[in-house]
C-alpha cells in the first residue's frame, strides 16, 4: 500500500460502504432477485478510474466484508471481486477511452466472471444459495453501469 497524494481514498471507502449497504439491505424477494452486484460495480468503477487508490486490497476487503455479511464461505466473494478488479486494472487505460455505454459490455463480462467464480466456489463448498435468476443480475448490472459510473464519478475529480 502506498500513500500517494491525490488518490480519492475517502471516496473509495465511502462509495464501497454505500454499495455494501445497498447490496445487503433487506428487500422483498422479487426485488432482491434482480438486485445487481453493487459492490462489484463500484469496485469496477474505481478499478478503471483510480486503480491506485485501493489497489487489489480494497476490492478484496470489500468482498470479504460481503462474505461475512452474507454468512457465506469466507473469501469467495473476495476472490471473485479481486479477480475482476485485477482484470479491469490491467485494461484500465484502454477502458477509459470508451464511452460509458461501450464500457457496459465489458462490465457485463466482468459481472459474469464474478458470478461464475462465486457459483463455482458455492458448488465446491456445497452451499445451495443459487437460483437460475442469478444469471439475470450481470445483465441488470451492465444496464445500470452508466448511471452508477456517473453517480460514483461525482465523488472525485478525474485526473
Amino acid at each position, binding site marked *: 500500500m502506498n500513500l500517494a497524494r491525490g488518490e480519492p481514498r475517502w471516496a473509495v471507502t465511502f462509495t464501497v*460502504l454505500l454499495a455494501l449497504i445497498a447490496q445487503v439491505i433487506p428487500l422483498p424477494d422479487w426485488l432482491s432477485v434482480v438486485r445487481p452486484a453493487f459492490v462489484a460495480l463500484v469496485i469496477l468503477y474505481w478499478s478503471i478510474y483510480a486503480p491506485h487508490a485501493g489497489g487489489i486490497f480494497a476490492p478484496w476487503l470489500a468482498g470479504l*466484508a460481503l462474505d461475512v455479511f452474507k454468512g457465506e464461505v469466507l*473469501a469467495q466473494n473476495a476472490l471473485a471481486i*479481486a479477480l475482476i478488479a485485477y482484470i479491469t486494472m490491467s485494461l484500465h487505460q484502454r477502458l477509459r477511452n470508451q464511452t460509458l455505454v461501450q464500457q457496459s459490455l465489458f462490465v457485463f463480462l466482468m459481472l459474469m466472471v464474478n458470478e461464475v467464480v462465486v457459483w463455482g466456489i458455492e458448488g465446491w463448498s456445497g452451499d*445451495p444459495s443459487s437460483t437460475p435468476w442469478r444469471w439475470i443480475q450481470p445483465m441488470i448490472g451492465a444496464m445500470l453501469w452508466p448511471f452508477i459510473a456517473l453517480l460514483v464519478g461525482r465523488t472525485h475529480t478525474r485526473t
Partner: protein
Amino acid sequence: MAVFGSATNRSFGGRGPSFGFRFFCYAILSVVLMFYDRRGQEQGRGWLDTARYGLQAAIYPLQLAVNSPSAAWRWLDESFTTRETLRAEVDALRERLRVQQLITLRQAALEKENATLRGLNALLPNIIEKRLVGEVVNVELTELRQRLLVNRGGTHGVFKAQPVITGDGVLGQVFRMGPFSSEIILITDAEHAVPVQVVRSGVRTFALGTGHSTSLELPFVPHNYDVKVGDLLVTSGLDDVFPFGLPVARVTKVARDPAQPLAQIHAVPLAGIESDREVLFIWQRKDHPAAVASPEALAVEAAPPVKKP
C-alpha cells in the same frame, strides 16, 4: 485482451509490486481462507471461527445501519399509534395474562402430582434455568435462507447451537455469532431439522424446514403411524440442542398416498416467524430429566449389545 503481461499491467515507477503479483498473493490467501473455513465448518471449531467472530463485530455497525430504515419506520409507526389501538392491545394482553394464570394455577398442582408419580422427593425446578431477551435486528426470509440477526452475542453468554424460542414456540438455534450479535437459523430453513414428538400419540420423527416461513414438513413418517391434522408437535429432546417438550408446530395436512412409501405431512410452526421482533435465548438445567441427554449417556445407549458366545 492479450495485455495481461504487457506494459499496461506493470505499475508505475515507485508504486510497489505490480497488480499481477499482488492479485496472485490475494488469490492464494483467498484459497487458503476458503479451504480452512470449509474444513472448520465440517470439523467444528477452528481458528477461522475466531477470526469470523472478530469480523462479525467489525461489520455489526454496518448491519445496524442496514436495518436503520425499517427500524426508523417501526419507531415512527409506534410513536403515532392511537390511544384506542394501545387500549385494545392492553386489553388483549390482560386477557392473555388471565388465561395464562389459569394454566399456571393448574400447573403447580400438576407438577406436584408428577413428582409424586415419579417418586421424587422434591419438586423439579423448571427446565429453563436462565433466559435472555434479544431483539431482531435483521430478517432474511428467502427460500434458500431463513435467518435472523439478533442483537445478542458472545459477550452476553450466547453460545453456538443454543435454542432460541418465542412465547409461542421454538424459533430456531444459534448458527453463528459475533461478540454483540448472533445469527439464528430458523426451524423453517431448508437446511434445518428438529426432532419432534406428537403429543397425542407419542410418535417421534423429524420436522424439516421447507424454506417457507409458514411451513414445515415431516417426510419420515410411515403410513401406519398415528398422526392426524391438528396434532401438536413438541421437541423430543433427542438432539443435543432442544430440551424436551417445547412446542414446535401444528400438523396441517396429512396425505397418505399408497403409491408413496411414506406419508406426506405438513405442519405450521407455532412461533410467529415473520412477526416476532423479540426472541428468547434459553439455558437449560443440565441435571433435569427432560434436558438433552449428555453425549456419554447417548454413547452408552448407542453401544452395540455385547454378543454372547
